[in-house]
C-alpha cells in the first residue's frame, strides 16, 4: 500500500526528497521510502508503536504527535506527505473535547502550511460511511488543497482501497508565471498609462448605494443561512436546513 501511495505522490525521479509520514506506526511505510532514497520524518500518537519503530532501527526521525492538534513544522519544508490507514482516526471523538471537524481543520491547515508549493499529500484511509468521506474531503478543500479521491479496484470488496490525493498549490501552471513589468520592452514610451477617469459619481457614494441595495436584514432568511454556515465552518453542531428554516410565522388571529 505504501508503494502505491508513493507512486501516487508522483515525486520527481532520481532526486532525494524530504517526506512526512503521518501515522507511521512501526515505520513499515518508511522502509519503502528509504528504498526509494528519500529522507523521511514519521509521526504517530502511540508510544508503543514508536518504541517498536525505534527497536527496529528506523532510518527516519520519529515524533509522538496527535495529528488533531496539528503538525508543528516550519512552512514549506516537506516535499510530500504520505499516510497509511490513519486519517479515519481523526473522525473519532475519543474524548469529550474532541470535535472531529475542528481537529480535521487544524490538521489540514498545519499540513498545508508545512508542505512546499506544488507538492502532494496522499492518504490511504478507511472511511466508515460516505458522510465521513465528504467531511474529510470538504475540510481539506477549505484549507486550500485541491485534488480528490482515487478509488482502486472499486468493484472488488477486498481489494478496494481509498486514496485521498491532495495538491498543495499547482506545480507548473503557466497561469502562475512571473508577470512582466511595464515599460521594460524596447521602444516603450516612458509616460505612464492614463488610468484616471472621472465617472461622475464619487466612489464613496457608489459603495454606499451598493450596500443599501444589497443589505441583508437581521433575522431574514439569508442572514440565518449565513449564520448557520459560519457556525458549521467552526465545527459547531447546527440543525439541518429544512423548508421551514427562516420562514415567517402566520399571523395567529
Amino acid at each position, binding site marked *: 500500500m505504501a508503494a502505491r501511495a508513493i507512486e501516487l505522490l508522483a515525486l520527481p525521479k532520481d*532526486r*532525494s*526528497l*524530504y517526506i512526512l509520514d503521518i501515522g507511521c506506526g512501526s515505520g513499515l511505510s518508511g522502509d519503502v521510502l528509504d528504498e526509494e*532514497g528519500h*529522507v523521511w*520524518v514519521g509521526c504517530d*500518537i502511540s*508510544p508503543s508503536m*514508536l*518504541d517498536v519503530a*525505534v527497536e527496529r532501527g528506523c532510518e527516519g*526521525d*520519529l*515524533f*509522538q*504527535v*496527535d495529528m488533531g*492538534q*496539528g503538525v*508543528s*513544522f*516550519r512552512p*514549506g*519544508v516537506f*516535499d510530500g506527505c504520505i499516510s497509511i490507514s490513519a486519517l479515519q482516526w481523526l473522525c473519532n471523538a475519543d*474524548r469529550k*473535547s474532541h470535535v472531529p471537524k475542528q481537529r480535521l481543520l*487544524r490538521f489540514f491547515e498545519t499540513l498545508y502550511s*508545512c508542505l512546499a508549493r506544488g507538492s502532494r499529500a496522499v492518504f490511504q484511509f478507511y472511511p466508515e460511511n460516505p458522510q465521513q468521506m465528504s467531511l474529510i474531503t470538504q475540510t481539506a478543500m477549505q484549507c486550500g488543497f485541491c485534488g480528490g479521491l482515487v478509488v482502486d479496484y472499486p468493484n472488488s470488496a477486498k481489494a478496494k482501497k481509498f486514496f485521498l490525493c491532495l495538491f498543495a498549490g499547482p506545480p507548473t501552471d503557466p497561469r502562475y508565471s512571473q508577470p512582466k513589468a511595464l515599460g521594460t520592452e524596447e521602444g516603450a514610451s516612458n509616460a505612464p498609462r492614463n488610468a484616471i477617469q472621472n465617472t461622475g459619481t464619487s466612489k464613496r457614494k457608489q459603495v454606499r448605494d451598493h450596500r443599501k441595495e444589497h443589505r441583508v436584514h437581521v433575522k431574514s432568511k439569508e442572514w440565518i443561512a449565513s449564520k448557520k454556515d459560519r457556525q458549521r465552518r467552526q465545527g459547531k453542531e447546527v440543525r439541518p436546513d429544512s423548508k421551514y428554516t427562516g420562514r415567517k410565522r402566520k399571523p395567529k388571529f
Partner: protein
Amino acid sequence: MRLVTHNMLMCNLKSCTKDKFPLKVTDFTIEESDVDPNPDFLIGLLPKLEWGALVGTAKALGVGDELPSKIPEDASEDADFLTALHHVIMEVEIKEAKLVCNGCGRVFPVSKGVPNMVLREDEV
C-alpha cells in the same frame, strides 16, 4: 531526532505566536553514527534550512565547529562544506533532551530520540 529535523520543528501551541522557532535544546545526550552521504539531498535542502538557527543549535550541542557562519556562494561545489554539513545534520542524533520554546516556555521532552509533541487537553 537528527538536527535536520530539529531545524524544521516549531512549538506546537496555537496560542504561542512569537519566538516559536528554534526550540532550545537543554539537558541533552547526543549520539553520533555513520550515515551514507547524500549530497543531492543536501543541495536540495539548502534553501530550506534556517542557517543561523542551525549553527546556533550545533554550537550549543558542541558539534558545530566546522560550520561556517554563512552558506558559501558555491555551496553545491564545495565538498568540504557538504561533508561538514552532512555530519552535523544527518549523523548527530539527539537521544535524550528537553526542547524548550523561547516564546512560551513550554517544554517538550525527548526520550530514546523521539520528541513528545502531544499537548495537554487544556492547551488545545
